């Protein structure tokens, strides 16, 4: 089977697994809802700049929790079985694609719920969703790759956070700036430059994940 065919099958497998173990999906959805409500109850009235930062922090924590399980939840024997069946590149690509879609769904959900309970301050919706899209992809690439590293170590969950947070900061900083434009907090004529920077960061991280993953799976 070609790599593309393998990727398609593996993505379908991820969705099927997710659908069969509904408790995991339900768990992460509840995580989103309860985080949003904790933040809402703490703040009640949220100004647009706060909304922007809070949104991306909720997104960050949700993403870390959602992606951690992508490698960690599968035990070593099953992973070995996958590697014997498919190309490792196809495995990491399928996980990145699946996690990107998962994070996009979760982030849009966060946006809907958080926008519902607070006054939704987003003015330029296409720009905001572009930020959500690029952010989800960037976080999915980084977190999937880091989870592949962390899964082999002790204390995977703690390691996920300390390994990925500093690396996610460039993405988050760009996201908060682009979203600030979408919220009308700042008007920046160079927002295109930020989008290009974010795209470049995503591309670099994807390239690194592609190049370095072959060194990770062999054991």
């Amino acid at each position, binding site marked *: 089977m070609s790599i593309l065919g393998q990727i398609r099958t593996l993505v379908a497998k991820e969705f099927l697994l997710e659908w069969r173990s509904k408790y995991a999906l339900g768990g992460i959805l509840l995580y989103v809802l309860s985080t949003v409500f904790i933040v809402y109850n703490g703040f009640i009235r949220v100004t647009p700049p706060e909304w922007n930062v809070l949104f991306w922090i909720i997104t960050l924590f949700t993403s870390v929790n959602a992606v951690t399980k992508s490698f960690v939840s599968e035990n070593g024997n099953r992973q070995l079985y996958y590697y014997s069946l498919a190309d490792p590149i196809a495995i990491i690509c399928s996980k990145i694609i699946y996690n990107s879609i998962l994070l996009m769904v979760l982030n849009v959900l966060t946006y809907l719920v958080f926008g519902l309970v607070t006054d939704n301050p987003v003015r330029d919706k296409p720009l905001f969703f572009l930020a959500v899209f690029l952010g989800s992809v960037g976080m999915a690439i*980084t977190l999937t*790759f*880091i989870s592949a*590293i962390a899964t*082999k*170590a*002790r*204390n995977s969950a703690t*390691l996920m956070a*300390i*390994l990925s*947070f*500093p*690396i996610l*900061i*460039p993405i988050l*900083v*760009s996201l908060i*700036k682009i979203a600030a434009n979408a919220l009308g907090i700042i008007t920046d004529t*160079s927002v295109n*430059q*930020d989008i290009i*920077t974010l795209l*470049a*960061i995503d591309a*670099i*991280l994807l390239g*690194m*994940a592609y190049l*370095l993953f072959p*060194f*990770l799976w062999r*054991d």
Partner: protein
Amino acid sequence: MLKHWWKILGALLVLYTLIAGFMIPLKPGIQEVTPTNAQAGDNLSLAITGYNSHFKDAKEIKAWLKYDSTHYIVGENIRDSTQTLLFVDFKIPTPLPIQNESRRMTLILTNEVDGYSLLPDAVEVVPMGIDTIMGQWGNTIGGLHEVKGTTFPYRNILYETIRNLFFHVPLWFAMIILFFFSTIYGIIYLILGNSRNDHMVLSLNQVGILYGILGLVTGAIWANWTWGEPWSGDVKQNMSAVAILVYLAYLVLRNAFDDYEQQARYSAVYNIFAFVALIPLLFVLPRLYDSLHPGNGGNPGFGGEDLDNTMRMVFYPAIIGWTLLGAWMAQLARRYMALKHAALEKDVDF
């Protein structure tokens, strides 16, 4: 002895940086003047406080206030001087060349011992309500003294902290160089294996973290003096703190494996991934945001007159010196690791 030339060179250059960086005096300059404002038509008696200056020794002191490039006021009645305090009278003419507008004038002072010095925006002059013709504008100045000597430039915001350029900036450059080579050794380890390369990665990162922390500390001291706060929320400050967090995470990751081969391979992969992820953080993002650092956000770069030949004479050796010293420290750390590793493999208690 011959093969240790780079260690000797590194130590000598750092020693040279320390001695030259601290011993070479600042060029004489003007620290402040009082009063700082005047009205057209005043007979302004200006008290000038000098820095490292020799007013008392000087025989030929001249002073001007510069309104613009064709309007100067000549200082008269220069008197009552100690080495660092001088009184000069200026008769400010009226009307001003540009009426109805206040303007800050630059003070120019020269004598044969100290050479000439400037204080930009020294005195603000406001126009008088009624214009009576009095006073005289000179349209050129002449007879500035050039004094040859080995001195660092005098800058009004920096004063003696200009010497921090030989520590803060080279430590930072050296850190980037060390992290760059640790990434290279990481790649070599992944391709060729050999625990020597892995130990090289770890030791270079350890020294890099040390340099990073020293760079932050020297930066914070400098920021406290020039920007008013040790942590000014400057984008480069924040980003460099993040860079150190990444490498601290690397150290944590290393300790989270039981098997040495896994530990070396996984941490090498993270090391490469992290370095590449840091490139936008350190080199791209700070350019998109306003920074207080020179050369960012519309600030003039540290160059031109600030980085004069005397500064360069210490600055470039400092970069080489700190880098070589870092490489030496990393080599010692690597040897210690190799001994420990060998002892572990032979099951010797170390």
